[in-house]
């Protein structure tokens, strides 16, 4: 029954939500917990059709609060569990993801950002950056991959499970409504053919043996009595997170070596920025592009290096400065001027970036 869902490698043409479902299958995910919300629904639709064929499970919960906490339960039981959501659902998931942060529960959450605040649109935005990176009453001890294509949705959904289980921090794949709903080509593969070995999972509850006799019982908690105790716990958590950062942080640069103007954008906006760089370079304008793949943690040192030689940074995002805040924190103290091109909840094209850059010359 449970043969490999994907043998070798094959080129396919499908929507991003379908890609996520296949990637989770390929990553040997055991169970998905979920609740309907647009534009993420088809992840569940494909998963519910495919999962039983490969011996995997699904539970539709009563809301996203429950979907998040059932995911925690699944992970604590040693299963590669995941969930997916968007917008108002992401808000409700923050409760469970904060617990996951505190208790080092390696959950995987795929976010297909929609417009905000509130119900807003079901289409697209980059307005869930702050929430996904820092949501909850905590310190944001998470790893967030901001993908830009179906290929990356596939690659990083697989990677999310491994990074989560290796480092035991909650991992997020931050897509958006465009990536969820559009169709384009990608290559799906069996992770093994690329030398990717799935990190083994470990149960934290329901272990073998009689607790108190054969082994210590698991007494997991996220509550502490004193300020001092909490401070120590969180300080240790932060320290361990910071140790992980250099190993997980990812970014890409495009013609930044001699760039006088550097475009900063993440997620699907990077595609528009890359196209703009190409056009502007053809016209002899020295433009480059820096794109974080992990939007949190952030490749701060690498961006700082670029700042030293650039004459201007332009932050481009489909939100009102959520990404810009991350950038500002990362390069605090640098003197390079920074401009912003914000379109909250709206898509950004290469053409308009070209126009904007040329207007400022």
């Amino acid at each position, binding site marked *: 029954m449970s043969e490999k869902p994907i043998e070798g490698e094959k080129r396919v*043409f499908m929507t991003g939500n379908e890609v996520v479902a296949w990637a989770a299958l390929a990553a040997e995910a055991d169970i998905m917990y979920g609740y309907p919300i*647009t534009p993420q629904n088809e992840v569940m639709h494909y998963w519910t059709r495919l999962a039983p064929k490969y011996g995997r499970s699904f539970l539709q919960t009563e809301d996203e609060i429950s979907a998040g906490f059932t995911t925690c339960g699944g992970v604590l039981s040693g299963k590669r569990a995941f969930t997916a959501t968007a917008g108002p659902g992401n808000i409700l998931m923050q409760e469970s993801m904060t617990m996951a942060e505190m208790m080092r529960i390696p959950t995987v959450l795929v976010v297909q950002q929609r417009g905000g605040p509130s119900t807003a*649109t*079901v*289409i697209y935005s980059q307005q869930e950056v702050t929430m996904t990176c820092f949501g909850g009453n905590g310190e944001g001890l998470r790893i967030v991959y901001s993908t830009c294509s179906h290929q990356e949705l596939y690659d990083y959904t697989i990677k999310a499970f491994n990074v989560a289980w290796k480092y035991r921090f909650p991992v997020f794949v931050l897509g958006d409504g*465009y990536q969820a*709903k*559009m*169709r*384009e*080509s990608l290559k799906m593969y069996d992770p093994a053919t690329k030398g990717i070995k799935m990190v083994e999972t470990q149960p934290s509850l329901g272990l073998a043996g009689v607790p108190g006799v054969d082994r210590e019982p698991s007494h997991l908690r996220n509550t502490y009595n004193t300020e001092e105790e909490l401070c120590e716990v969180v300080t240790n958590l932060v320290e361990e997170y910071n140790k992980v950062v250099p190993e997980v942080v990812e970014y890409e640069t495009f013609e930044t070596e001699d760039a006088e103007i550097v475009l900063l954008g993440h997620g*699907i*906006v990077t*595609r*528009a920025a*890359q*196209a703009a760089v*190409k*056009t502007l370079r053809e016209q002899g304008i020295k433009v480059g592009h820096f794109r974080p793949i992990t939007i949190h943690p952030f490749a701060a040192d690498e961006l700082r290096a670029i700042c030293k030689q650039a004459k201007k940074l332009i932050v481009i995002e489909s939100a009102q400065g959520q990404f810009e805040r991350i950038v500002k924190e990362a390069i605090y103290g640098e003197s390079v001027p920074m401009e912003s091109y914000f379109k909250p909840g709206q*898509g*950004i*094209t*290469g*053409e*308009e970036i070209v126009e904007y850059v040329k207007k400022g010359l």
Partner: protein
Amino acid sequence: MSNTVKVALAGEGGQGVQSVAGILVEAANDEGREALYIPNFGVEQRGGVSVAFCQISDERIGSPKFKFADLVIALSDRAVRRTKQYVDENTVFIYDSSVEGVEDDMPQKVKKILAIPALDIAKKELHPRVFNVIVMGAAIAVTKIVDIKQAKSALEKKLGYKFKQDPKLRELNFKALEKGVELVEGKV
């Protein structure tokens, strides 16, 4: 951005623009080209103007939406008003000649405006249901994004199960496709 062909198809929900767009990009993908298709969708399940944004290229495609299209096809009055924003001096703008009351909504800066009697031909000569396939033929003739043979095999792939039950449907769809090509050939 250079060799990418951009198409916006718009109509009323139920006119079948999304399925045509789906078949079109599928055909391009089967030819080994890069294709990207994104439907525009609101909260309603039905009703409202439905827009399909398609891009086909020999290289990886940039952002899913675009500012101006090479071809815009609008199939209703509301679709004309909704899509004229994607038209500039390099755009071919096609609308169905049954659409009324849009004289003042025609794009001003445009490469070419063409009204085609797709709905009328579908109703009188073929079948109302293949209206969208005529439109697909017109789109292919203008943009040359795929050849007709490839389009036919994409139709076969998508509707083959229906063709099996009723072979006349195959003939009807293929005829509609060719009719669509005829409607614009030599005119743009």
